[in-house]
């Protein structure tokens, strides 16, 4: 008989250290393994989070990859499991499987301008890559964060964005679809910010994350600007039950989104974006 292999389907208990409410329906949790130890991951990867007795959801990791002592997840409660996650408090436990999936190839952008294009909660999966880029700031040309949110009240990581905006080595441009209150900033879709440029298209790598429609148009805007489609990366969402290519649910054409993605090079999937109900 063969020795049993480690089972990727069994979660490891983590304890919630902190919970911060980011938006009315979005929250960030800091987790530590109950058995101690560290958690290493690459920016763009995700975990399957298990709420005891309720179920599991894939959630991207949104913390700093350089800090292995704590696992950070930003979640928007939109369904049964995420709502159950939302109900957990510091001290509670949840199960973690992962990290799974491909990552934002930050190192491949060394020597380039690096343009992050985020929409809505799509900023969360990009944040680890932003941290990693800032930790290697001297390796890039310009580093630009273009972020589109629904309204000023829906801007994720607002304080952090303000802090980043204060840095002279990072350009942060935020736009909202609908201005409310005393918002004096940009109004319009995030593709408008792409069209405004501010980067050298022939020497630019871009990481794009948001709703699929937004990514499609953002990638097209980058392409129109002259950015090579082979230097544009997107993060795709599909139904995931296992996270590791065993359950078949997340198939997108020839890809298993969970292990061939979620981060894909745009030129390799641009055709798939055009196929309805794939």
């Amino acid at each position, binding site marked *: 008989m063969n020795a049993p292999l480690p089972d990727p389907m069994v979660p490891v208990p983590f304890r919630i250290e902190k919970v911060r409410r980011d938006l009315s329906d979005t929250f960030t949790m800091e987790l530590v393994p109950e058995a101690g130890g560290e958690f290493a991951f690459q920016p763009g990867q995700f975990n399957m989070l298990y709420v005891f007795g309720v179920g599991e959801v894939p959630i991207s990791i949104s913390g700093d990859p350089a800090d292995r002592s704590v696992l950070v997840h930003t979640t928007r409660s939109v369904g049964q499991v995420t709502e159950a996650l939302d109900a957990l408090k510091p001290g509670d436990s949840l199960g973690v499987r992962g990290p799974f999936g491909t990552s934002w190839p930050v190192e491949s952008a060394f020597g380039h301008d690096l343009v992050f294009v985020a929409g809505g909660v799509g900023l969360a999966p990009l944040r680890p890559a932003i941290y990693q880029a800032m930790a290697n700031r001297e390796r890039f040309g310009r580093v630009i964060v273009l972020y589109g*949110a*629904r309204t000023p009240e829906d801007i994720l990581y607002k304080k952090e964005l303000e802090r980043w905006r204060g840095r002279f080595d990072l350009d942060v441009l935020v736009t909202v679809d609908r*201005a409310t209150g005393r918002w004096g900033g*940009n*109004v319009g*879709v995030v*593709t408008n910010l792409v069209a*405004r440029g501010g980067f050298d298209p022939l020497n630019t790598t871009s990481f794009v994350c948001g709703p699929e429609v*937004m990514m499609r*148009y953002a990638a097209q805007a980058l392409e129109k600007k002259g950015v090579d489609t082979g230097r544009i990366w997107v993060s795709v969402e599909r139904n995931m039950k296992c996270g590791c290519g065993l359950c078949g649910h997340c198939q997108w054409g020839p890809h298993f989104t969970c292990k061939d993605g979620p981060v894909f090079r745009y030129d390799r999937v641009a055709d798939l974006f055009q196929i309805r109900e794939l």
Partner: protein
Amino acid sequence: MVKPDNLAGVLQEHPFFQGIAPSLRDLLVGCAANERFEAGSMLFRQGDSADKFYLIRSGTVAIEIDQPARPPIVVETITEGEVAGWSWLVPPYRLTFDARALTLVRALSFDAQCLRRKMEAEPALGYDVLRRFLPIMAHRLSASRLQMLDLYAPPKPAKVKKEKAEKAAKKSKGTNRSPDARLKKAKKKDAKS
């Protein structure tokens, strides 16, 4: 309004007229002027005759719709390197939105009547100007559509379902036939008698 000598240079530097033929540029310069708007002031108002358009050189302009009893709705912001106003190209040449300077705005303005006349007289100029405006109009249209999609809105179906279920439960006559309901009815009767 000032008309400095270097207007041609300013015009040529602006991304909108990038690479324009010097002969056409000179025709444009004749209709152009340098303008400056303090934060809060209006570049133009909805309903006004569209007798100008602006190339923004610096600052941010909000395109707004005015509404009663509420602050105006900002539908779009336009910044440095972009163009504000294209109603001057479309009869009856009336402005359809308000444009307000959100910051100090420096712009190159063009006299629409002057330009329309020159474009009629010189089709090469007419074609060149339209060729530059059309992509911007197309971009704005597709951007507006995307904006309308409200892509980052929380997904609704789950909640709609819940509402439906609640509504159905309220409307349903099924509960009247349930043992609990009959018990309640009986109790009510008892109380009355």
